[in-house]
């Protein structure tokens, strides 16, 4: 039973913190634990949990960031000879007394990876000139770095147009067709960079966010890179639920790779399945423009961000998760909005699953597989729903998720559906 919102979000860089931990907490607090600016873990504290002595805080921090720190260091040291010696333990071996120095080095190496591709940054706007202004202010370093910034406005208006015009080098594209997907599509077509980086007008990227995304395209096989999404605020229970119940932004601080293997987009480290929700449902991503155009992602009509990931994987390209790229995203504030999002994500997952069906599979067989498949975790949620209700923590998104799932099954199984380029799908 989580504490009710509002929560405070508190950033602590443990590399700079010394001594006791004595913040004046008045609300439940999400403490983001960073090391030299890089998010490595989090802690959830109540006002009664503080103060803590220096040793207590260090112990808490270490418990939260230790495994991630080790993972990052180990990833940078896989060339070590001990890998060949089965009597040693790869990750345990990095736990020498200078583990923090090693972590420093590993992070510096990660940050120093070269960026070789040109980028267009697409800001999808929705008639919110004040938000747009703030967003564009955070992108000034990108403009100075010579990157293209395009505002793609779903609700074009004079005010937004003026804001875009006030920032030198920003292009403005009106895209009044309904739907965020089509707005993005218009931006992709208008972009000139090799990579298209997406963010919304209410997103707030951290410094270095774009470079970290772009550095993830370190081979031609990488089609899409996504980054860490942090909540801009946790003022409402719906925003808390977006993070902890829908799992938006909870992928952690260790880089991941996903490929379209038969295991179901397994990154080889046990992370499989629903890539989109695992990595934040598209709130912080960059995609190769040629991949996007080739797959017709500029003309997606349903499934949205969930489909994007699975289209890329199904086409044989890799998806990378790069947590050095950090963006703060305002989750939807109210329950109706969150339920809509849950429904959309669930429907998109069905569409994505169907896309992964073997080619030529009869539609009826696909329908049976989808309808009968009922993902294990939906069934698990249904069974546990009465238990959670009895405990006073109802699963408030279950019905929406089931509706989305059912809508996706109906759509894919019983009707004409369109492939990404708008043609009716032909069954083999």
């Amino acid at each position, binding site marked *: 039973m989580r504490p009710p919102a509002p929560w405070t979000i508190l950033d602590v860089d443990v590399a700079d913190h010394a001594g006791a931990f004595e913040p004046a907490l008045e609300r439940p607090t999400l403490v983001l634990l960073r090391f030299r600016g890089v998010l490595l873990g989090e802690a959830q504290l109540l006002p009664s949990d503080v103060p803590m002595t220096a040793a207590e805080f260090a112990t808490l*921090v270490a418990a939260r960031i230790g*495994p991630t720190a*080790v993972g990052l260091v180990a990833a940078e040291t896989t060339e070590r000879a001990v890998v060949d010696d*089965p009597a040693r*333990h790869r990750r345990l071996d990095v736990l020498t007394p200078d583990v923090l120095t090693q972590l420093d080095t590993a992070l510096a190496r990660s940050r120093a990876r070269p960026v070789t591709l040109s980028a267009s940054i697409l800001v999808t706007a929705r008639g919110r000139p004040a938000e747009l202004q703030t967003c564009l202010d955070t992108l000034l370093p990108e403009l100075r770095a010579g990157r293209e910034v395009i505002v793609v406005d779903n609700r074009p208006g004079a005010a937004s147009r003026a804001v875009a015009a006030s920032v030198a080098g920003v292009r403005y594209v009106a895209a009044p067709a309904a739907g965020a997907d089509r707005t993005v599509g218009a931006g992709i077509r208008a972009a000139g960079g090799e990579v298209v980086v997406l963010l919304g007008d209410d997103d707030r990227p951290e410094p270095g966010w774009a470079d970290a995304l772009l550095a993830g395209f370190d081979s031609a096989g990488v089609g899409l890179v996504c980054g860490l999404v942090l909540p801009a605020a946790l003022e409402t229970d719906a925003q808390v639920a977006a993070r902890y119940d829908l799992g938006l932004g909870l992928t952690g601080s260790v880089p991941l790779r996903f490929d379209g293997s038969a295991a179901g987009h397994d990154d080889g480290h046990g992370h499989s399945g629903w890539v989109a929700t695992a990595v934040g449902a598209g709130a912080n991503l960059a995609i190769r423009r040629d991949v996007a155009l080739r797959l017709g992602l500029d003309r997606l009509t349903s499934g949205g961000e969930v489909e994007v990931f699975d289209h890329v994987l199904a086409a044989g390209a890799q998806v990378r998760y790069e947590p050095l790229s950090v963006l703060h995203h305002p989750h939807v504030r109210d329950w109706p909005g969150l339920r809509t999002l849950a429904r959309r994500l669930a429907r998109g997952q069905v569409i994505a699953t169907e896309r992964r069906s073997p080619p030529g599979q009869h539609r009826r067989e696909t329908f049976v597989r989808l309808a009968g498949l009922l993902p294990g975790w939906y069934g698990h949620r249904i069974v546990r729903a009465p238990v959670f209700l009895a405990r006073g923590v109802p699963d408030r998104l279950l019905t929406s998720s089931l509706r989305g799932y059912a809508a996706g099954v109906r759509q894919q199984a019983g009707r004409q559906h369109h492939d990404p380029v708008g043609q009716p799908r032909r069954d083999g």
Partner: protein
Amino acid sequence: MWQRELMHAPYALHDVEVTAPLRPIHLAPHEGGAHLLLRHRQRPVGVVWLSRAEHGDAVEVDVLAGLVESAALEATAATAVRDALLGHPAPAPTPPLTIAVCTRNRPALLRRSLAALVSMRERRRGQGPEVDLLVVDNAPDDRATERIARATQGVRYELEPVPGLDVARNRAIAATDRSWLAYVDDDAVVDPGWLDALADAVRASPDAGAFTGPIMPLQLDTEAHLRFERAGGFGKGFQWQRFGPERWGDAKHPAGPGRFGTGACMVFATAALRELGGFDEALDTGPPLPGGGDIDMFYRVLRAGRRIVYAPGLLVRHQHRPDMAGLRRQYHSWGLGNMVVVRKHMRTDPASGPRHLRQARWWSWSVLQRLLLAMAGRGPHPPDLVLAELLGGLTGLAGAYGRSRRRMAGRRHEYAA
């Protein structure tokens, strides 16, 4: 059925230092498996179970390495990063401490427990005030315990004639002049690093009300030993935990105090014990109410606004019940003690009533789940163990505490006369 293939005793016990190269584990022909306690620079960090049924009679290094890394990584990483954040502090001085062993008619066990305590004390000599070792002999039938205590150099002896573990514990409170009072069971053996871990824990959390730690098996020689330990034993893991008046996301907290520690090894701020009036002598009175005193005190410490710290280095090895009949009694005692504490505090601490109610509901659901699993032949518990716990719990809810209070009042009266 009930994981029988994993319950072929004995299991060998190994300590494995993860910073050293691993060696393969070979089971002797009579051994059913092995229990590995993993250490990182001597600090306990995890456990690996190996069984003949799952791994054969030899586990080679490449397999073992993966198991060890999975089991040890989290706690080891936390320990290493913590030390680095704190700048690798020098060992902490021994706090002013009495370690009390409350015992009754088990001289052989006491001798073993005292030997480990004395050895540990000697290792730390000169690193702070000398540890005061105290034996509280509870209602003995003879003088065997007294002889052992008096024959051990540097051990004090106190006689508590009124039967009752918590009566003995309260005798220890009266008999100490130290800031910290630890209780170690007579059937437990402290880990060599126990005092180092306590010193470190006290330095880190000087205002804590209590410290607890993990309990590992002293032997795994019988099916009862294995069933108990395989089902989780007293285990609470190897991650540091700090418990306060509230707990994030836990609507039961601080009800369900069995989660905070185990009476086989617990350390208290003496002042906290005195402020709370000592242990409840109506608990741990022997049959028909043989438990509950430890968890009752944990609960009261938290409700008084003090914290409990679970320190993974405060490890003791415990001699578990050797036979299934004894194990059934243990489970019965657990259910009884847990629900007695719920019932007691719903009456004495009505503000926390809803939390105790949730705890009782959670416990009921947990027992029911385990019973269903057991009846289906799954899990490590045969149905009779779960039923014993259920019966104990129902007895606890049905007024066992009140009856025990009356019994203790009579006992006190009898011994005062």
